[in-house]
């Protein structure tokens, strides 16, 4: 090094600098030489720390071996080798990863650190954090020591420990904490290698104290095998030890912990970056019970402010079923705080069922306080709750729980908002005497109504008709019989059939016939339905699309035709049915989804479900009828459609017929179908 003429510093100072520099160089050489010989000090210290940490953690490890069980779950070969667990209490509670038990092993054997072997019992699983709690009848075990708060920081050393390779000592993988509060707030992320060789083991800090329990996790999946595909990838997860210990405490009761659900959805195609405005609140869900409504914007969850859909998921992702979470929403200008009691399962809505048909002439006639208020029973379904409680024809239901019953539509609303299985109290008027009846609601049966379901006509013959029923002079002179009409300003026309003895004081069911493309089948449909319409009190409406296939553009035409008939005749809103055949089913389903208040029942011949219906709710309370020839190639699909509807808890009847497959419409089924329509106002 040349040392001449420093420009700014004095020579003396420069010399001092050089001395310093030389000293530093000497120091460096010594350090380098030392490093050459024995490895650097820091690396040695770290290496020692890894070993010490593993040794410290070891007494709290257990080695788990399983016997029996299924081999493949979710297309993954289940692990059969030893797996790892962690002691959480000295009296024998152990935590492990739920992944280690997906094969549902017949027997679990645990080896403790001291080499003692115990049979273990699987107490419960945590379906949110993917942990399993085991119990062995042992004492004096060494529970895991939770790490200090400052260890939970990204960048800190993290050692993943399993006890699977060697019976003598554990296996370790060294990394750092990559992130905290990952996978919707549940997990620590580490770049230590996490895989079936250490799932269930601890992630520890450099002191050997536990940071968490290693589990496979995925932000996208919720099964015990989700995230296994990331093994050894540098993306590994551990459930923070405090959360795991809390979960263990709760699981000691022996019941599984489940993901807590509240029953709201955001717009399906909405990005998680958007503001959390509620799109839908599921009927009967915790969110609905807490009073949340559509368009509410969530602003805080459990005291933490949220701005985006992702924030809400992040906060909610940590809760179990049965947890209570305080949620603040903005509704218009107001801010509301509600407490939501989370559940494990959001049950589809299902209506309660009494098992009666109402006498229709009384519907809508009663005034408040009127003697005739209430709903008179015209028919009691055999073996229904009403039958078993001893209700009879002509009984009048005047009170439902503590609510006076005014009319059918009010009673229907009350029944439909009561769940099957609930017990309710009715007050019934029988021969001027009040009687209290208790009954347990059932579910609406899927079977077709019994063959002997009385027709309205037969009941009139039964002399139950009100005295003034023959007084028809006030009736408007609407045409009856077969009609052919067009709507003003529309090209399309429709035909209809109104029973010849139409009485405006009675209510009539409406069957809207959507013909298959190219053939209205007008003559044959009329022939088959005419007498039935007369006896079952039905009006038949046949909108026509002769030139083109049915398309969404026909929606308004069909709707207007229905409204036109309903305006002129006394149509019962609870017995409006859309009936289609083969390909026309697609349009019928479109129409039902689009105009959800237009129909009470959907009947389809030879057509499966093509559009999934909306969730079953009191406001979408359709009943379904799917009919099919037994040899029709559509049969399996239709079978599946009915199953799907049953899954969604819609009442859905399935009818099959034999004989000539080409016969249309199938003769006897018209009779069945009409009886089904006649029972659509059942409660």
């Amino acid at each position, binding site marked *: 090094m040349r040392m001449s003429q*420093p420009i*700014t510093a004095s020579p003396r100072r420069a010399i001092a600098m050089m001395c*310093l*520099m030389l000293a530093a160089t000497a120091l460096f050489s010594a350090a380098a030489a030392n*490093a050459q010989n024995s490895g650097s000090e820091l*690396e040695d210290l770290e290496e020692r720390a890894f070993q010490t940490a593993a040794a410290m953690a070891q007494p709290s490890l257990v080695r788990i071996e399983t016997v029996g069980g299924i081999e493949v779950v979710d297309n993954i070969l289940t692990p059969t080798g030893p797996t790892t667990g962690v002691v959480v209490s000295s009296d024998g509670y152990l935590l492990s990863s739920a992944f280690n038990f997906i094969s549902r092993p017949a027997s679990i054997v645990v080896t403790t650190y001291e080499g003692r072997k115990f049979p273990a019992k699987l107490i419960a699983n945590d379906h949110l954090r993917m942990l399993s709690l085991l119990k062995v009848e042992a004492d004096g075990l060494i529970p895991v020591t939770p790490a200090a708060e400052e260890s939970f920081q990204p960048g800190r050393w993290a050692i993943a420990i399993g006890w699977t390779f060697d019976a003598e000592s554990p*296996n370790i993988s060294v990394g750092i904490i990559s992130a905290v509060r990952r996978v919707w707030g549940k997990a620590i992320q580490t770049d230590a290698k996490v895989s079936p060789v250490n799932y269930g083991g601890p992630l520890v800090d450099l002191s050997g104290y536990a940071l968490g329990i290693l589990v496979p996790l995925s932000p996208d999946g919720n099964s015990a095998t989700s995230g296994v595909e990331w093994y050894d990838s540098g993306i590994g997860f551990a459930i923070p030890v405090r959360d795991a210990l809390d979960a263990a405490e709760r699981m000691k009761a022996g019941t599984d912990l489940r993901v807590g659900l509240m029953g709201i959805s955001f717009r399906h195609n909405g990005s998680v970056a958007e503001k959390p405005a509620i799109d839908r609140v599921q009927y009967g869900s915790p969110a609905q019970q807490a009073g949340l409504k559509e368009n509410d914007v969530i602003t805080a969850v459990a005291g933490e402010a949220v701005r985006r859909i992702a924030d809400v998921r992040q906060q909610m992702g940590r809760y179990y079923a049965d947890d209570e979470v305080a949620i603040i929403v903005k509704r218009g200008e107001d801010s509301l705080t509600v407490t939501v009691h989370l559940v494990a399962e959001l049950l589809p809505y299902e209506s309660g069922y009494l098992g009666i048909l109402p006498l229709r002439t009384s519907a809508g006639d009663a005034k408040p306080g009127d003697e005739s208020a209430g709903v008179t029973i015209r028919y009691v379904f055999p073996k229904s709750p009403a039958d078993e409680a001893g209700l009879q024809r002509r009984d009048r239901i005047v009170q439902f729980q503590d609510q006076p019953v005014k009319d059918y539509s009010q009673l229907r609303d009350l029944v439909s908002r009561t769940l099957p299985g609930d017990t309710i109290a009715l007050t019934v008027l029988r021969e001027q005497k009040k009687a209290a009846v208790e009954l347990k609601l059932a579910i609406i049966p899927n079977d077709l109504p019994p063959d002997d379901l009385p027709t309205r006509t037969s009941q009139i013959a039964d002399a139950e008709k009100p005295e003034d029923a023959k007084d028809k002079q006030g009736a408007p002179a609407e045409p009856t019989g077969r009609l052919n009409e067009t709507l003003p300003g529309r090209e399309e026309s429709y035909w209809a059939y109104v029973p010849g003895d139409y009485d405006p004081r009675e209510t009539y069911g409406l069957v809207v016939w959507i013909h298959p493309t190219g053939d209205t089948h007008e003559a044959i449909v009329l022939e088959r339905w005419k007498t039935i319409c007369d006896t079952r009190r039905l009006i038949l409406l046949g909108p026509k699309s002769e030139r083109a296939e049915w398309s969404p553009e026909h929606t308004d035409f069909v709707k207007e035709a229905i409204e036109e008939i309903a305006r002129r005749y006394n149509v019962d809103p609870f017995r409006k049915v859309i009936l289609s055949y083969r390909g026309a089913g697609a349009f019928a389903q479109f129409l039902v989804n689009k105009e959800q208040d237009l129909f009470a029942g959907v009947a389809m011949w030879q057509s499966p479900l093509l559009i999934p219906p909306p969730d079953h709710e009191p406001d979408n309370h359709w009943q379904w009828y799917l009919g099919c020839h037994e040899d029709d190639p559509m049969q399996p699909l239709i079978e599946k459609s009915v199953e799907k509807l049953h899954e969604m808890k819609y009442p859905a009847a399935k009818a099959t017929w034999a004989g000539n497959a080409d016969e249309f419409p199938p003769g006897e089924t018209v009779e069945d179908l009409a009886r089904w329509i006649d029972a659509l106002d059942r409660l």
Partner: protein
Amino acid sequence: MNTSLLTSHDASKPPRTLHRCSRRAMLMACFATVSLTCATSAIAESTRSTIDYVQPRMVKIFGSGKGFKGFYAYSTGFLVSPEGHIATVWSYVLDSDQVTVVLNDGRRFSASVVGAEPPLDLAVLKIDAEGLQLPYFDLNDVEDADLGTRVLAFSNMFKVATGDEPVSVMHGVIAAKTNLSARRGRYETPYTGPVYILDAVTNNPGAGGGVIASRDGKLLAMIGKELKNTDSSTWLNYAVPISELRVSIDQIITGNFDAPAAEDDETPVAGAQYRPETWGMVLVPDVVYRTPAYIDAVRPGTPAEAAGLRSDDLILFVNDKLVSSCRAFREAVNRQEEGDTMKIVVRRGDQLVTFEFDVRSPEEQ
């Protein structure tokens, strides 16, 4: 050279201040650099020198297998003799008339297979290295490593190294030591002896025949072939300790197969001179194969009592070596020599406590 080029060059130059810095500033900078190097190189230096030592001893091997779907035609080897012997894994890569070996400096050689030991998945090749004075690993200078030991892995994985490029280096730790035989049937491998499980993803195409070295340049193990754990369908990163291979390599090189197949590595201890009781430590009864080394009692008036050892202390380390059982502790104590200091680390509750004992003959104590 146009202006825009100049501008772009500027970006890659050192900071502007250096251009017109004074000599004093320069000195300061030198000083700073040196002290910085001093601090940081302490981490890197031994790793770097180990790499410098190991790389010239590694070779890239190219053979058959090319063209078959799912098969690759390359692997790794390491020089084990001054005559040009190369140890590697036995695989179909060698199943060829033409095996090519490429040295660290890019020199290419045709190699012949001298011999193989299929039960060890081992093969030895030879290149004509007469008079070239190629560097090689001395198989008598190998080491065993413990759990948690930091290691470097060298291999021709994915043949990313071409020509005179050195093979790829990964770092990791010894994740476990185990016996493949204990898990026989779970792995489709003829080799069933002891292995190191590595906390590094070494299980890659072409990595077989690579080596694991400690940070101070000691050869530890040879990377095995790709192997899947059929239990969990996960890949296994393992390496076979050189101590398992050394005798066979020697036998293949010398052609002398009379030597014992395995020598006893354990140097017999001359007499059971020292025992835990020498210092007054009474261990719990050694009932199972690996009873942890818990202290059952401390005899009064002994060095153990004076040092403060207590019953229920769990002995974890002796002179920084992990002892996993009573048996291992007794062996470790037995290896002590007069005049040494024996350092014992125990776990007491959640704490680690260190004790030191002078090693003197029992009579003196």
